[in-house]
């Protein structure tokens, strides 16, 4: 109990400290702008940004853009996880699959998803699909590689236990492999969800008429830097939230088995 209380008080403090720093930065931002008489048109201050933020919320357009972006990220990310994790498990378990596919994966992996934009637009046209495809690509390869490594680093003793107790394939998969890789997988998912969030903004600057990326591009064309900054701030906040959601996934006891100490 004492340990729990200590941990709580320790985790509370960084939150407060972080908030204080954030407020100070905002104040500094505003003060410097006033002091140097920078035009609000080129570098809007926090007050103006907040004001525009409120405007976009009340007219409903911000919510529309957020939903559009989140939809694309969610679909692309889920597709990548649903295909990438099983493939990663197969590559980690079966030498034949690994020898057949790994060179191709390592070849495709370093190609930036943005390099796929021309092809994506040609194949899928304009709309949600090319953006989803790009997010899928950006998440798929890192997930495959991370899962493969996680599966390969499972302690061989666990498979021998399974052999000894005469497990079938399904039992090996769900009682050994899946729980064993969950801690590594949560880390991988955290990393990929932030990659997905980076890529969606880039993708929305090209092929679509909605989303936070589009909001930024459109506002730039209208020379509304305050809206550009609203877009940036919202992207930051949602990125933070996404990371927290995936982190919550990793908080359950099942995925924390490697962290519980004696």
């Amino acid at each position, binding site marked *: 109990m004492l340990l729990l209380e200590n941990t709580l008080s320790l985790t509370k403090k960084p939150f407060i400290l972080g908030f204080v720093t954030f407020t100070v930065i905002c104040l500094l931002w505003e003060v410097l702008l006033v002091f140097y008489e920078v035009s609000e048109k080129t570098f809007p201050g926090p007050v103006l940004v907040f004001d525009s933020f409120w405007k976009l919320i009340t007219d409903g357009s911000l919510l529309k853009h957020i939903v559009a972006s989140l939809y694309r990220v969610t679909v692309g990310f889920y597709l990548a996880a649903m295909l990438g994790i099983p493939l990663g498990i197969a590559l980690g378990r079966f030498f034949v699959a690994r020898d057949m596919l790994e060179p191709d994966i390592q070849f495709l992996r370093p190609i930036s998803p943005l390099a796929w934009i021309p092809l994506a637009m040609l194949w899928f046209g304009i709309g949600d699909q090319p953006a989803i495809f790009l997010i899928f690509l950006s998440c798929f390869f890192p997930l495959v590689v991370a899962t493969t490594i996680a599966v390969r680093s499972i302690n061989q003793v666990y498979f021998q236990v399974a052999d*000894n107790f005469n*497990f079938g394939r399904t039992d090996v998969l769900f009682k050994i492999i899946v*729980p064993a890789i969950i801690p590594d997988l949560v880390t991988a998912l955290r990393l990929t969800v932030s990659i997905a969030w980076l890529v969606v903004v880039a993708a929305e600057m090209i092929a679509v008429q909605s989303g936070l990326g589009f909001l930024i591009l459109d506002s730039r064309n209208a020379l509304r830097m305050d809206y550009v900054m609203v877009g940036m701030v919202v992207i930051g906040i949602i990125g933070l939230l996404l990371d927290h959601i995936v982190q919550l996934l990793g908080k359950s006891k099942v995925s924390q*088995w490697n962290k*519980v100490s*004696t």
Partner: protein
Amino acid sequence: MGHIKIDNLTKEYAERRVLPRNDTDSEYKGGKLVVLDSIDLEFKDGEFVCIIGPSGCGKSSLLRIIAGFDKPTSGKVSINGTEVVKPRTDSVYVFQQDGLLPWMTVWQNMELGLIHINDKEEKVKRIKEYIDIVELTGFEYSYPSELSGGMKRRAELARALVINPDMLLMDEPFTGLDFLTHMKMREEVVNMHEYIGKSMVMITHFIDDALIMADRVVVLSERPTRVQMVRELEGRARNIETDPVLHELKDEIYLMMGVSYVV
């Protein structure tokens, strides 16, 4: 039933080191590292066998072959007359450490061996019984990382015993325990053997363990590994310090292992 017969068993591993061509060291035959060389052994049903030998001699390899995890290069192991070709539920291996699945509670770990039993009440009854035998009552829902070293070993023993196997194969089960826990576990395992009457084969590098616990002590040589000594011992509650026969045997084994000066 747990009668084990080991027939002319040899195990070679591919040697990864680059050897000079004219190397005629008998340890390497044609670039192979010979670990077990023509081992012949026979253990009676219900016997407590301890295998000792110098580090790297292939004690674990031998046990793994008995368990069916590894295949011998030649020769064979038979249990109750049937050749061992793959791991089987009637000979359960107790690992040096980390044998418990860390993402499962003690209870869930115990259920692993009973995966093919559908009768739920029977399952619960048996798990409770064996948790009680190893004195882990109250820790059923603890994770392995929340248990002490000795408790982990006891949990693993319980998990092995709950499926009612013919024999237990223990690979240095006392490694990493503190001295007192080691002493206690030694006693507990011997008691369990007397109580349950299963065949047990235990690898150890503690000569005292072997002399105090075993019905049959097997001493292996250095590589290429041969059987150096097989000795049957009788009676329990042995005291090495006061029993001149055991004392002499201990010195003899130390000598075999290349330790000539025992303090």
